[in-house]
């Protein structure tokens, strides 16, 4: 619709509201990568990308409004960037024929492409993340069996996102023999966690795991430093940013989190962004914020978008593709090392291959540590524990289908085998 040879990519962003701290770098990263393609290559496959942001303020209401506003304009996909917005879109995607890319958030069960042909959440799920964290702790201790008798605390946002890993965590605790302590933080109490951390003082867990978002993260890191919790035993899922750690001061040194892509600007792709976008004044990113964790996460997200479009173009031979085409294109994503190199992302992230059944890839993640200035990668990539996560994910997908009676069987053909 928007121009003849163009693809319309709406980006749902939240540069405003209480979560804008996380939303802004992500939005900048997403935008800048696509803009870079437009500037450098004239878009993807010769078709310009029409980028349009729609501000959600991390509010489901506004997210749905954004969706309704873009859905008639042939978007190649939507990026809701909020679990609350993703959930209502899941059943609609198939009907409206618009794929939903919820990168490492949203409904973890939607990794199952047979059940959710239109939803993609690469490269990891929160369950994968949890298994990686457990594995990392086990590695530190010297083996999974060493977890026996240990105590692990879990501090999380008391909402769907934070609660999702709990059954899995409990399963691990049972299987591996450690004790799990829960410290829920309500959304209204994110800045006020002293009771939780008092609990930590009482229970003295050997490790702390965090699934937080927004203001929860910096406050938790600060509180941890206040009670002198050993930071290198404090491991978070992949959402804390540099700012979150920085605001806790020197005490935050050693804080760890998962990640699956590089930080910093030392990658060809980021150099290109610098050259074609930032230096031309086309970016909104604040000076020095390029290359930060969440910015690069946005870049990664947009790389998937572009790959999806590119594959769709290849599969259909069209320049301007539709949501249906891109759904196929996303299933065909195969980020081999060679491809990553072409993309200027060598060393930026690990290879990833999606398929009709696997919309996630369950890729490896690594642990990075805050050194007081920046995050540095420690140790190599850790693969999620497929054997543990797989059944849980499968069961969850089955459960979803059961509870939503009449959930359609996959009718979309499969291109890649």
């Amino acid at each position, binding site marked *: 619709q928007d121009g003849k040879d163009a693809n319309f990519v709406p980006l749902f962003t939240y540069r405003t509201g209480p979560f804008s701290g996380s939303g802004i770098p992500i939005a900048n990263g997403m935008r800048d990568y696509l803009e870079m393609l437009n500037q450098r290559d004239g878009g993807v496959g010769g078709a310009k990308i029409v980028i349009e942001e729609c501000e959600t303020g991390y509010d*489901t209401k506004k997210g749905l409004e954004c969706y309704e506003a873009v859905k*008639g304009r042939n978007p190649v996909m939507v990026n809701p960037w909020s679990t609350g917005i993703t959930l209502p879109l899941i*059943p609609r995607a198939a009907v409206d024929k618009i794929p939903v890319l919820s990168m490492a958030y949203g*409904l*973890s069960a939607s990794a199952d492409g047979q059940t959710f042909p239109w939803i993609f959440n690469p490269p990891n799920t929160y369950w994968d993340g949890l298994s990686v964290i457990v594995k990392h702790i086990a590695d530190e201790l010297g083996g999974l069996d060493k977890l026996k008798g240990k105590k692990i605390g879990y501090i999380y946002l008391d909402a769907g996102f934070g609660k999702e890993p709990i059954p899995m965590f409990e399963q691990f605790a049972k299987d591996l023999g450690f004790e799990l302590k829960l410290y829920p933080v*309500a*959304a209204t109490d994110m800045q006020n966690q002293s009771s939780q951390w008092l609990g930590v003082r009482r229970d003295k867990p050997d490790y702390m795991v965090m699934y937080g978002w927004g203001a929860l993260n910096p406050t938790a890191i600060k509180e941890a430093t206040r009670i002198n919790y050993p930071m290198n035993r404090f491991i978070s899922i992949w959402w804390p940013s540099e700012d979150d750690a920085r605001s806790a001061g020197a005490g935050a040194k050693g804080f760890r989190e998962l990640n699956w892509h590089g930080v910093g600007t030392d990658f060809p792709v980021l150099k290109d962004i610098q050259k074609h976008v930032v230096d031309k004044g086309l970016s909104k990113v604040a000076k020095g914020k390029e290359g930060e964790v969440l910015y690069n996460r946005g870049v990664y997200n947009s790389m998937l978008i572009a790959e999806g479009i590119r594959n769709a173009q290849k599969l259909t031979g069209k320049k301007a593709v539709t949501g249906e085409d891109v759904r196929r294109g996303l299933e065909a994503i195969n980020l081999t090392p060679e491809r990553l190199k072409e993309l200027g992302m060598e060393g930026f992230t690990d290879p990833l291959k999606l398929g009709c059944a696997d919309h996630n890839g369950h890729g490896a993640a690594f642990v990075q540590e805050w050194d007081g200035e920046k995050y540095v990668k420690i140790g190599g990539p850790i693969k999620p524990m497929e054997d543990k996560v797989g059944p849980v994910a499968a069961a969850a997908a089955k459960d*979803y289908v059961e509870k939503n*009676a009449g959930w359609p069987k996959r009718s979309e053909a499969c291109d890649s085998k």
Partner: protein
Amino acid sequence: MLYRETGQFKTSYKADMAVFPIRQDRIGLAIILLLAFVAMPLFGGGFLLSAVMIPLLVFALAALGLNLLTGYTGQLSLGTAGFMGVGAYACYKLTTFFPEVNLIVWILASGFFSAAVGVVFGLPSLRIKGFYLAVATLAAQFFLQWCFIRIPWLYNNNVSGAIEAPVRTLFGMPITGPHATPELRYLVVLSIVALLTWIASNLVHGRIGRSWMAVRDMDIAAELMGIRLLPTKLLAFAVSSFYCGVAGALMVFLWYGSAEPEVFSISQSFLILFMVIIGGLGSLIGSFLGAALIYGLPIVLKSLFPMLGLSVGAATVEHITFMVVGAMIIGFLIVEPHGLASIWRTIKQKLRVWPFPY
């Protein structure tokens, strides 16, 4: 000249006590209903129906419920979203327990659950008044939201912690789920809202409405006239929560499609309260006008920027929208503190004396 009552004589008390005693008003209402029921679904289009009209009606219903409590009975409530949540979760449970029963029945039935919860949290209103009463309803708000998070039974142990509207049909056509057309969803919402508005209008124009207003305006005098305060207030809490509950159920089932507990947060309660105030406390029309202003204005403003040919970032648009909405709220209040409904009344008054200034 258009708006003249001269010549319209009431010959019976019945005619005089009608909700719309003036002929022009009745014609106006008929036109509005015609537009809403016929023109809108025919020409509305997907975005207008699902992203504007349905939300607007849902909010108007919730605002109407709150208006019964706050505007008519004078009991400030900040627990609206919580009561909406009760309706939504009750409807969810009911329809999963008894999937055969028509969803509309459950949507209406879910109102009774929130009515019951509303009554419980209305009990302190006997002793606590004004802004202080807000704390009781805030307790409801936070406690209920905590329940939605903490009691897995309420959301059928879904891993996502959210509730998802299952597919349900009306006369063989889906009204929930992805296949439900915006037109049908809109018509269902509109019908329920219209029915409940009509009932609310009956209530407030009769004995019950008068006792509510009496309690609001001067509770001591009301009591000295034989109006028992507690039952009157509790009835208001019950009816109000009923409306909010139905609105909540409509919101999840016919608008969102699925909802996390976060949807029923305090900010939603405030939003609805503000719709009621800006619309006009103690005015049914006001609830609709208020919802239109607070929900609709940002949408209109947002679409205004591209129309003006300004290309500013989505975030800047949002910032400016916030500022403009804020300024407009203050502006409206200054023009007419008693809400949009009152502006509407003044306009009618002016029309009546037109072409003279007064």
